[in-house]
């Protein structure tokens, strides 16, 4: 979805704002774009839950590694990354909704980059544990 498409489809009889993040000029965007923004939030939240569940599984289910704190070294960054993704998904949903109401371009999301870097870093930790943490 592009911001232009969202702007073009703004409902003409929009609702004036009453909460702090909205101005009287704001109008509700096309319901389809609101749905799409909501689904994006939910998808990021599921990603966060998957990261947290994987982190918990890594700390609780993996057999004890030779390296002290090995399981925690693997699981805690996953849980932390999940928490960051969860918090950021709310901020991103809010920013997208605000931009659509105001007819502004959609803000750029850093979440795919953060997620990629985080997962690559955790993968590197796993490889390092496998290489140096065992006999």
């Amino acid at each position, binding site marked *: 979805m592009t911001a232009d498409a969202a702007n073009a489809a703004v409902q003409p009889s929009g609702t004036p704002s009453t*909460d702090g993040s909205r101005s009287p000029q704001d109008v509700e965007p096309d319901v389809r774009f609101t*749905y*799409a923004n*909501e689904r994006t939030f939910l998808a990021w939240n*599921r990603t966060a*839950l998957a990261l947290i*569940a994987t982190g*918990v599984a890594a700390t609780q289910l993996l057999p004890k590694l030779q390296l002290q704190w090995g399981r925690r070294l693997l699981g805690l960054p996953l849980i932390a990354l999940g928490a960051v993704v969860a918090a950021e998904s*709310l901020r991103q949903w*809010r920013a997208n909704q605000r931009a659509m109401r105001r007819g502004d371009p959609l803000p750029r999301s850093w979440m795919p980059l953060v997620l990629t870097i985080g997962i690559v870093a955790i993968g590197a930790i796993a490889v390092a544990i496998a290489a140096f943490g065992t006999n």
Partner: protein
Amino acid sequence: MTTSPDPPDAPDSGLAAERTVLAWNRSGLAVVVCVAVLLRHVWPLQGTDHEVALGLIGLAVIVWSVVFAVLTLSRGKRGAYASHAESVFRLITAGTLLLAVVGIVASFAAP
């Protein structure tokens, strides 16, 4: 879970509403799985604990469904969605962060 009625003067949302309901269902299942994984490993279930754990998971499902229903019903009312959505998404994020905190605490309690 119920399907969402569009506001009377809204443009046809096509299948977007249906996709959104499915996304809510997937997210609900993800929450249940995450809670179950945490409960299973934080709490060594014994005796009637299984029933209590099942009850807690059921309660989480009910809370999730009620939250979703509130948001769905607010779509039909002008101005209600914006305020309800903000609260609902904040609640979901807070719940996810709470699960993360419990996961971190549990990792230090692991044998």
